[in-house]
């Protein structure tokens, strides 16, 4: 509470500028943003939400406000967050309010120094990435010191030291580890004048990260320092681009891997071809025992030091996002091929405006695990756990996703998108629904927009999801009317008409409306939220079924 008043005082000091500071204030800049999400829940007996389940907790509220102040090379920022209590589906440990993010930094052309909380990423994030994702309630910022140094153009060195945010719990004596990290990136085209305009674009990088957490385990002798290292490159030759990163971690027994002592590996390889109107991408990825958290006992979405990028597509249509993939940190191996093509304008198929076609295929399997010794079974705590061949796919498919996407503008007034998806989804492994069969589905989507005038348009979606497993078949529809640049109103329904239990054949309807002006957006919705999973970047959060009103206000300046 005191801190809040200090910030308010600071703010009012800025705004009521006196003459002495007026020159300073002219040169300084303030950016800021805020968002509040409020929820009112009510009972919905059809969905199994009764008054006694809600038990008087009808209201939930997530909010934040952030201010960044800059004066020349100096900048500082603070964020206030409140979860009173958190909206259903967010980690309950967020309950509370305070200032979890405060920092100041000073930067010159070659040098930058940050104290406080910061977000940083080394390479692809395989060994270190701290970030914040409001929609997940996720924040693993480091609180400590960061130095960036650019001795010459083309070389960037970074060093970080600190402890991670863990909801509202302050760091104290070994309740989580201390993270140290170092990264360097060399861009040859910037470093050497002779390569400045070369067709070959080459950069390499390397990182080392270590966490320090004293072993207090009664059973096992655990490593106090866990080191990880990674090396990466990016090569561009004309229309081709290749990039890769490999990371290795020493033994790091944890609650996630079941306290096994096997070292971890992670590997990503991307190859792409890009030319006017055509882009092709191929990705190979392998993760083997690579969860890396600053507290070995943590199992939820918190205290991750690294980030394991998923190679599945992030679907956004209502029914297409029913079965989202979450990265399996203990092991997965997969590949992805994606083609984006634009049929040119004024061709037979392309018509006056051209047509976009894209195709995606992703498959992710489990890795193969062999016993580490003749007498030990796989994954026994306290042992090496298993051995695994690097390029071997197991028969166990976690997910397969085939997608065809077409978009065509037919006239100035009408354009449409059509999408077909075919998915295989192992809900038992990915979402922990033990014993449930693997889901095979077909999904079809039509999304059409008609423009009445230059400002008013109507968009409608028709979707279907067909499967013999889980909750069986669904259909969905949506209508959205917009008046640019301020207004929208929308109504949608998802109907689980194929559910085996006839009293569970529910309609999940929502009506919503909103107004936006400049950078401020206000929206209200009413309806039912189906039970599901919200994922951003392979990190997912469970959303329970709910029914009620939802209000969001967000703004920035």
């Amino acid at each position, binding site marked *: 509470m005191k801190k809040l008043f200090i910030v308010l005082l600071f703010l009012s000091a800025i705004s009521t500028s006196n003459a002495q500071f007026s020159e300073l204030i002219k040169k300084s800049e303030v950016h800021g943003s805020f968002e509040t999400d409020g929820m009112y829940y009510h009972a919905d007996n059809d969905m199994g939400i009764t008054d006694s389940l809600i038990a008087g907790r009808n209201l939930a509220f997530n*909010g934040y406000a952030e201010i960044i102040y800059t004066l020349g090379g100096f900048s500082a920022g603070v964020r206030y967050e409140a979860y009173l209590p958190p909206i259903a589906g967010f980690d309950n440990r967020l309950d509370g309010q305070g200032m979890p993010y405060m920092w100041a930094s000073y930067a010159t052309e070659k040098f930058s120094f940050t104290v406080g909380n910061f977000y940083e990423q080394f390479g692809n994030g395989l060994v270190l990435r701290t970030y914040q994702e409001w929609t997940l309630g996720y924040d693993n910022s480091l609180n400590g010191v960061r130095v960036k140094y650019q001795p010459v153009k083309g070389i960037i060195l970074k060093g970080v030291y600190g402890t991670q945010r863990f909801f509202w719990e302050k760091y104290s004596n070994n309740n989580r580890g201390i993270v140290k990290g170092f990264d360097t990136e060399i861009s040859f085209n910037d470093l050497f004048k002779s390569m400045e305009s070369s067709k070959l674009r080459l950069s390499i990088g390397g990182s080392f990260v270590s966490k320090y957490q004293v072993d207090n385990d009664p059973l096992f002798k655990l490593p106090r320092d866990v080191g990880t290292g990674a090396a990466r490159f990016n090569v561009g030759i004309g229309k081709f681009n290749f990039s890769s990163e490999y990371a290795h971690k020493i033994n790091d027994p944890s609650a996630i891997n079941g306290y096994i002592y096997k070292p971890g590996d992670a590997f990503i390889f991307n190859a792409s071809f890009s030319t006017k109107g055509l882009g092709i991408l191929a990705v190979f990825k392998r993760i083997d025992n690579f969860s890396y958290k600053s507290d070995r006992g943590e199992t939820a979405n918190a205290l991750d030091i690294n980030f394991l990028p998923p190679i599945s597509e992030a679907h956004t249509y209502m029914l297409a996002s029913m079965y989202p993939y979450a990265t399996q940190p203990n092991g997965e191996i997969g590949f992805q091929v994606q083609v984006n093509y634009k049929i040119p304008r004024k061709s037979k198929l392309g018509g006056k405006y051209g047509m976009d076609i894209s195709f995606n295929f992703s498959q992710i399997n489990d890795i193969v695990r062999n016993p580490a010794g003749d007498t030990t079974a796989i994954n026994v705590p306290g042992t090496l756990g298993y051995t695994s061949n690097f390029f071997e796919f197991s028969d166990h498919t976690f997910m397969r996703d085939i997608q065809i996407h077409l978009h065509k503008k037919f006239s100035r007034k009408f354009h449409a998108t059509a999408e077909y998806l075919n998915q295989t989804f192992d809900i038992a492994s990915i979402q922990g629904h033990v014993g449930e069969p693997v889901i095979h589905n077909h999904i079809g989507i039509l999304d059409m927009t008609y423009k009445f005038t230059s400002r008013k348009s109507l968009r409608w979606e028709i979707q279907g999801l067909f499967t013999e497993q889980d909750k069986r078949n669904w259909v969905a529809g949506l209508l959205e009317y917009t008046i640019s640049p301020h207004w929208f109103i929308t109504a949608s329904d998802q109907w689980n008409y194929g559910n085996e239990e006839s009293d569970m054949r529910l309609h999940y309807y929502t009506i919503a409306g909103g107004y936006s002006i400049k950078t401020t957006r206000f929206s209200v919705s009413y309806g039912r939220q189906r039970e599901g999973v919200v994922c951003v970047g392979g990190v997912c959060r469970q959303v329970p079924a709910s029914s009620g009103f939802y209000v969001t206000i967000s703004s920035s300046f």
Partner: protein
Amino acid sequence: MKKIAALLFVMLLGFGAMAQSGSGKKLPSVNIKTLNGEVVNTQTISNDGKPVMICFWALWCKPCKKELDAYNELYEEWQEETGVKIVAISIDDARSTAKVKPFVSGKDWEFEVLLDPNQEFKRALSVNMIPHTFLLDGNGNIVYQHTSYYEGLEDEMFELVKKVANGEDISNH
């Protein structure tokens, strides 16, 4: 009590936001990357005294892609008339940064696209929702910003771009 304090704080900021929106600020200095992996400082984004549009987007954001499609279609026309330059900033994370270049090629977008994979530029500009578009005048001052995209916004944007290109003040918008 805490709830009331929190709400008051947030409302206070809200009023501050309305009052300050788009008031002649410049771009902060952040190092981000080109699609070829080279480092670019955001303060070097300029356009010879002509307006610049900075559009934040991501592969997972449908309205963002619609917005950029709409701009792309009109880009030639807009450039001829006003010399405006569009710079699209992808905030896709490590999951998708490698996908951005082939996607942009497949879309045949004519404007420049830059990568902000850990959202440093986004944070420095206090962008909380995308699509979020900034309009800069010829001197690099942020003169207008807008979040969200509805069909037809491009016409409104172009009206503003024309005014800015003519040196008119659009602070009342």
